[in-house]
């Protein structure tokens, strides 16, 4: 029998532990509604704005809510309740109320659904004060961050790559030893290595792991770090890790302008963790997602680009892109 996805297991455990946890979405399988009750597994029309607004009202008055908005693409239809309601009510009321609300939303990865469906909004969301933006890079990380989201007293968005759930997910690289709840803001040192630190988040965790292997083949030992969350982020801890190598490549799927990795790179340099000529940021193109896979491959940072950047940062001769 197929192994249950650790994120599904995490959700199920939370549903069993917390009788006041409700899940809102446009469709629940009948079996789930029976198992946990239609008063907890709530089905709504294609009305994401009201869905997230209702979830906020539920969370404000004693329940914990998970909104499965399906895709981050549809979260844009609920941006007012996200930006102006769920993440503001605690502050507006000076802490009289809290909003224990988690949102699961798929990003981009192997589906080829085009510019409207595929988004990588972690930097955008990290600009919202108080919002936790979790971006798992592996199945266990999806479970661990979801488990933490389902215990957190404030709104959390979990941005999940579809690649973490596609057939074959069992054989994806797994930097997290267990699916247990993960702390927010604490970067994970996945592998140790003295030459260069490769920093990824979400899909680019797999990219940097691939690059680390390629670099090992060229005699370079990479320390690999998964940020896990775009916000919060313990930059001091990250700076400590990076100081060990004094050389860093930060890899972001999102466009460069106002990106997470630009922000982190600046902070690492400012902290003196790494000199500027030993840092590289590899970003996604400032371009929507095309459906054609070949076109899409042009946009995302890939292993050769990261290896190249690492060799550049190390002052070594770089590869021609594609030669790894």
């Amino acid at each position, binding site marked *: 029998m197929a192994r249950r996805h650790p994120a599904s297991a995490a959700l199920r455990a939370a549903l069993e532990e917390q009788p006041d946890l409700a899940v809102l979405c446009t469709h629940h399988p009948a079996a789930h509604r029976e198992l946990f009750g239609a008063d907890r597994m709530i089905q*709504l029309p294609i009305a994401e704005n009201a869905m997230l*607004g209702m979830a906020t*009202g539920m969370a404000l008055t004693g329940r914990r809510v998970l909104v499965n908005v399906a895709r981050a693409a549809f979260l844009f239809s609920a941006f*007012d309740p996200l930006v102006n*309601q769920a993440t503001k*009510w605690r502050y507006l*009321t*000076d802490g009289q*109320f809290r909003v224990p609300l988690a949102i699961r939303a798929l990003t981009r990865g192997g589906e080829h659904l085009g510019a409207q469906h595929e988004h990588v909004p972690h930097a955008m969301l990290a600009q919202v004060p*108080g919002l936790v933006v979790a971006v798992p890079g592996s199945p266990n990380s999806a479970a661990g961050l979801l488990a933490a989201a389902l215990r957190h007293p404030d709104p959390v968005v979990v941005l999940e790559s579809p690649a973490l759930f596609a057939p074959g997910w069992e054989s994806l690289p797994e930097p997290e030893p267990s699916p247990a709840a993960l702390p927010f803001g604490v970067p994970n040192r996945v592998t140790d290595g003295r030459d260069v630190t490769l920093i990824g988040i979400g899909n680019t965790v797999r990219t940097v792991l691939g690059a680390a292997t390629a670099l090992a083949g060229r005699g370079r030992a990479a320390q690999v770090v998964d940020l896990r969350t775009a916000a919060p982020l313990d930059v001091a801890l990250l700076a400590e890790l990076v100081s060990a190598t004094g050389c860093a490549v930060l890899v972001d799927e999102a466009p460069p302008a106002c990106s997470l990795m630009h922000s982190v790179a600046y902070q690492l340099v400012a902290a003196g963790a790494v000199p500027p000529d030993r840092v590289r940021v590899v970003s996604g193109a400032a371009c929507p997602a095309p459906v054609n896979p070949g076109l899409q491959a042009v946009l995302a940072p890939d292993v050769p680009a990261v290896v190249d950047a690492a060799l550049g940062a190390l002052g070594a001769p770089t590869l021609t892109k594609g030669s790894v």
Partner: protein
Amino acid sequence: MTGAELIAAYRTMCLIRIFEEEVLGMTAAGLVPGFVHPCTGHEAVAAGVLAGRLPEEWVVSYYRCHGHALACGSDPLAVLREILTRRGGLCGGKGGSMHLADRANRFLGASSIVAAQLPISAGVALNEQRAGDGRAVVVFCGDGALGAGVAYETLTTARHLGLPLLVVCEDNGWQDHTPSPEVTSLSPAELVAGLGVGHREVDGNDVTEVARAAGELLADCRAGAGPRVLVARTYLRDFHAQSGPDVPVEYRPADEVDRWRRRDPLDVAANALVALGVDPAPVRASVAEEVARVAVVALATPEPEPASATTAVAVAGWAGSA
């Protein structure tokens, strides 16, 4: 409404009116940060509807929220301090005039984003439906709020789920500078009827009528009959938002303003009291005294501690990204 209930409602209306006049005076004196959306003219809606809510029932509001907070039983001093954004205000000076909230009185809060409070209240109603203790939820909105898609999403969903939600639409015929008929062909009542949601349309300046209709609709909600809408036709005496010493020029037709002035909700209620042989004057006078006292204390209250600016963003100890 019994005589005692009418006196209580009149008292609430006086409190709201005199309080708002105090606030308008302070606004003109430059003492109130931001915009004030006075509810003068709407007093019978707040007083009439909330006369019938149970103290354990949640109330949700919009930016025109002073009257709702007062009618929920919030301490006028804490409300005024919040409007002045002084220490001891309901929300520590963070929320201000448009975002009053008072957990102790089950006043959930107010949204300054038009219509956003509607799905929030539906979520609260979902919780109440599950609790099964026969409690309803009351949410207020303007007539312009019904133009927003999320109002529709809320009404249709509340109907489908049979939520115990009373939506009170304070239909003053305008949405900021725009007369509502300029942007919609459907009156609030037509719209709600079209969506198949049970409703009543009443003279929102007659507190007795408001209270009677709201009471019936609340009973429906509590009995599990699903959501209800109360459309209260009313009018703002002081339009629409005020900020600083420049009182906005009146842009509504003079005859319309006049017609409504002649049906001031406080006069309507006072007349009803007189018909019952009750003299309204002492009620009003005692409220005026109370508000005057509160105003003095509120104005003497210091500003909040600067360090409180960044508290309550998230749970204490949360490591915000540096």
